[in-house]
């Protein structure tokens, strides 16, 4: 760079002494992150089967789907309400190409063939939807992706040839190899944990890679990105492709978890659940959606009994989630992570910001 030739006069720090800014994993020096990792790994030893699957595996699956929204919204500034639809599409494709109780629809391919095909189709589906959505901004992106979600829900309801109408696909086969039933509680937990961890670290890693940085640039100022030589729409579509793959992985795990999928699994209210999970957890860091998913699953599971005991309709748990949502958005635009960081920094010496994805 001999471009600007004059010497820097006002220079407080020699650039030779300062290493180039390539940030490493912030988690490595964080004891809390290590503790969480260890607890997650030994979970089958400490948690009952109910907790292992109904709480933790479900949290990790919903968290993975919400992670794909966090990637789009937090880094790309694109709020997509179709992430659950993409996950559901992947789930349907697993049932259609693989083995299910609906023998006249399912092609009966082995899982190792059906799953990659399902993921590829879900990625293509989400990329196509993204290509439509990136032509708009803000509320119109939300509307288009919501419309795609709603259209898919009604389509699955009415289409019997592929999606088996409102009854959906039942008794979906799950992988079984090396003498292990991978849907048995403990192996399945590790499959889910491994996939969620992979997606989490991929998102964290990419946030500091050129593609992820450019996506954050697109979020902050798309016009300037174009004036720096970036094809902004191509970047946005590529972000949808990546997020669709992550959502598709979540969808495959979900259909393996419940062994069935029906229009009810891809309804509009489910799509909005994903938005709530991501926003409640916080969309500035990859860990946010998992925190949001844990809160969501705990509330959904336990407030039901609690409310019924009080003589109220169990479905009122949505009321609690809604109130929690309001409270969190009111007090912290950054979800639970924002509250936590605010609490941690209170009283402490002001730290240099800029940690994690985009600080």
């Amino acid at each position, binding site marked *: *760079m001999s471009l600007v030739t004059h010497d820097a006069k006002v220079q407080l720090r020699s*650039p030779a002494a300062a290493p180039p800014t*390539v940030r490493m994993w912030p988690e490595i020096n964080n004891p809390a992150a290590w503790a969480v990792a260890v607890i997650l790994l030994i979970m089958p030893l400490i948690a009952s089967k109910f907790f292992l699957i109904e709480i933790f595996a479900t949290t990790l699956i919903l968290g993975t789907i919400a992670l794909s929204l966090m990637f789009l919204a937090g880094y790309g500034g694109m709020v997509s309400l179709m992430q659950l639809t993409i996950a559901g599409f992947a789930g349907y494709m697993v049932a259609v190409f693989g083995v299910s109780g609906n023998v006249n629809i399912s092609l009966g391919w082995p899982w190792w063939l059906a799953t990659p095909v399902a993921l590829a189709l879900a990625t293509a589906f989400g990329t196509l939807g993204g290509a439509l959505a990136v032509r708009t901004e803000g509320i119109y992106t939300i509307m288009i992706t919501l419309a795609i979600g709603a259209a898919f829900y009604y389509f699955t309801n009415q289409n019997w040839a592929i999606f088996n109408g409102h009854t959906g696909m039942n008794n979906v086969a799950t992988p079984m190899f090396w003498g292990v039933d991978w849907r048995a509680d403990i192996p399945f937990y590790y499959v889910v944990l491994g996939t969620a961890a992979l997606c989490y670290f991929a998102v964290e890693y990419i946030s500091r890679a050129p593609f992820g940085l450019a996506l*954050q640039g697109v979020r902050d100022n798309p016009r300037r*990105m174009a004036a720096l030589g970036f*094809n902004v729409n191509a970047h946005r579509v590529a972000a949808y492709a990546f997020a669709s793959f992550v959502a598709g992985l979540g969808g495959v795990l979900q259909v393996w978890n419940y062994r069935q999928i029906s229009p009810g699994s891809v309804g509009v209210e489910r799509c909005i659940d994903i938005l709530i999970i991501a926003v409640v957890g916080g969309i500035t860091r990859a860990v946010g959606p998992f925190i949001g998913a844990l809160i969501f699953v705990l509330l959904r599971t336990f407030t039901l009994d609690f409310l019924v005991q009080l003589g109220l309709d169990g479905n009122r748990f949505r009321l609690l989630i809604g109130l929690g949502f309001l409270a969190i958005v009111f007090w912290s635009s950054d979800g639970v992570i924002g509250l936590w960081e605010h609490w941690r920094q209170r009283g402490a010496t002001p730290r240099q910001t800029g940690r994690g994805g985009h600080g």
Partner: protein
Amino acid sequence: MDSVAQRLSLVGAGAALELRGVTRMFGALAALTDVTITVRPGERRAVLGSNGAGKTTLFNCITGDFPASSGTIRFFGEDITHFPPYERIRRGLRRTYQISALFTGLTVQDNVYLACRGVSRGRFSLLRPRQNDALVHAADTLVQAVHLSAVKDQRVAELAHGQQRQLEIALALAGAPRFILFDEPAAGLSPGERLELIEILTSLPAHIGYIIIEHDMDVALRVVESVTMMHNGRIFKEGLPREIESDPEVQELYLGGGHE
């Protein structure tokens, strides 16, 4: 102006930027009307004119932020009239914005790194840059050149106005610019910062030409060798700085006309 002639002879003949009959309509309103400008490679020119004269619209048409409604734009001989902005930038065109257009959620270093990455390959790379990445070093050098090394790990939202203006310029210097459009780079700068700006502009390599929009005549006329006056979306007058300064019509219209 021997040194200028010498400098221009180094970079060869032909036009760096050639606008022919460029018009830009906003609905029924013509923001630019039949603008024809030729700028040689390495030439440094000021565009003057009151608010609403069409100066920034001219920049937006050249970079493609707003495409021209009619007319042709050539960049080093190539017709770029219908190119998207990023294709024009990749050919060596750069610009700055009147109101800083930065990535406020990212650090100074990341802003400049993106500028360097935008005009090179690997924009979609999923691999993090290594310690010895050439573009990371290029970004470091640029950060240093605009005196921002001390704050390079700070988020842009936390920078002072003057620092943001300096970063604004750094983004336009990334890669190998051939021609730069500066949109009021001195806006809101202190007298000391203006001197630094003049120093940055005058020390650019000889082959890099630029057009600068600047209301501050002290800055504008010290860093250019030609001037274009605009009025109501049209070219009003072109000439050397001293000719423009002493032109009675210009004085009436702009300099002595109670402007600012």
